[in-house]
């Protein structure tokens, strides 16, 4: 057995250097997935690179045009941020659905993204909100849309030496709203059987100007449903539009059959949740 090492660099550059050197280095942020995976011997890293001491991974910045959330910002910190709650309530709700209060005190947005669970609650909400991940690596920084970073269950396009430093989201325009809903068999503390996140902006005449729907737990990765944007843009949320939205959401599903939900069930529920989330986001947009 290799002896595990622990390092807590204070700069992005130092973290990249540690992650690039040798084999078996893992990024350590909240640890709520990582430590469990280590205990279950799913992974056996040689080095943990704790990114929590790097200032830019721990900050929430609300700028004129964008919002930057450090990768190691915890769920509890996001839940307490009043501005984020006002601007992106759907994203905040999605983050806050992850685990108990104890888990919220540790679990990070960067971790939820990079662990790449198809059922990760915050990810559809991030995708809907147009989030991009800022990735640091040996060749400097790059920015990639969240939906493009995910490549499969537990897999991302992060290359050796790379790690997510932050998420950058466009600051929502006026008349914007977002929402995230998930189906679970109990009321709390469970893993999504289906998750649906949506963010939209309305025109002055009350029609939809732009919209992004993303689904979780119905495919190998959380995914954007581009067809949903076409259904919504230019329209109001009447029964015909909702029916068409449900159809495209269901059509985008490629789920697995397991004890948590059958293919038929997940496919149907994705349509239902897409419509319910759209109604909530719409109401929020009208009030904003």
């Amino acid at each position: 057995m290799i002896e595990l090492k622990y390092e807590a660099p204070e700069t992005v550059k130092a973290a990249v250097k540690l992650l690039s050197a040798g084999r078996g280095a893992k990024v350590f942020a909240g640890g709520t997935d990582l430590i469990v995976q280590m205990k279950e011997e799913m992974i056996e890293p040689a080095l943990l690179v704790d990114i929590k001491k790097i200032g830019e991974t721990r900050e929430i910045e609300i700028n004129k045009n964008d919002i930057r959330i450090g990768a190691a910002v915890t769920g509890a910190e996001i839940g307490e941020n009043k501005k984020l709650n006002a601007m992106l309530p759907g994203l905040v709700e999605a983050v806050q659905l992850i685990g108990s209060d104890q888990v919220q005190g540790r679990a990070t947005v960067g971790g939820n993204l990079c662990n790449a669970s198809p059922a990760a609650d915050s990810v559809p909400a991030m995708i809907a909100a147009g989030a991009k991940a800022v990735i640091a690596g040996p060749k400097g920084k790059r920015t990639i849309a969240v939906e493009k970073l995910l490549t499969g269950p537990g897999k991302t396009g992060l290359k050796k030496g790379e790690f997510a430093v932050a998420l950058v989201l466009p600051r929502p325009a006026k008349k914007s709203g977002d929402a995230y809903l998930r189906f679970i068999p109990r009321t709390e503390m469970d893993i999504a059987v289906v998750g649906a996140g949506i963010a939209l902006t309305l025109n002055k005449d009350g029609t939809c100007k732009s919209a992004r729907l993303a689904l979780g737990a119905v495919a190998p990765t959380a995914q954007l449903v581009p067809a949903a944007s076409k259904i919504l843009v230019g329209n109001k949320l009447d029964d015909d539009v909702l029916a068409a939205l449900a159809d495209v959401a269901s059509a985008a599903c490629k789920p697995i059959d397991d004890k948590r939900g059958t293919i038929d069930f997940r496919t149907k529920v994705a349509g239902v949740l897409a419509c319910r989330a759209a109604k909530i986001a719409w109401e929020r947009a009208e009030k904003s």
Partner: protein
Amino acid sequence: MSKHLVTATINGDEVDFTCHADQTLLEVLREDLQMTGTKNGCGSGDCGACTVILNGRPVNACLVLGAELDGAKIETIEGMGKGNELHPLQQKFLDHAALQCGICTPGFLTMAKALLDRNPDPTETEVRFALAGNLCRCTGYDKIVRAVIDAAADMRANQS
């Protein structure tokens, strides 16, 4: 095997300890510091038996590494009462018979304290949500919830 030297504040006292990179806070507390009040339940962050307050936030000690705690402030069940005087939450757990086997109790008490530190007047729903990460197979939870609400009322009355 190289060890990390960590200086942290535990229940108000500065404590030095050494640990390996793979040692959790729970292991450091129970095995090295002989502070066995914090219980080991599932070891995967599901049961809340090992809840401690880290830098003001409740966390599962089984999902925190000892090596990351240099300069951290940690509160455990051992620091809850003052000498022989029980914390109001501890007293109310006794009054309401909010425990049977007791394994989950330190975690529930610590989590309840973390809740009341932030929200001295929680609704029943808020108490139930805050305690959702703590599992108890004996009580059926109702007595625990009542004990927390009662303790909160007492603590508010004693403050005003």
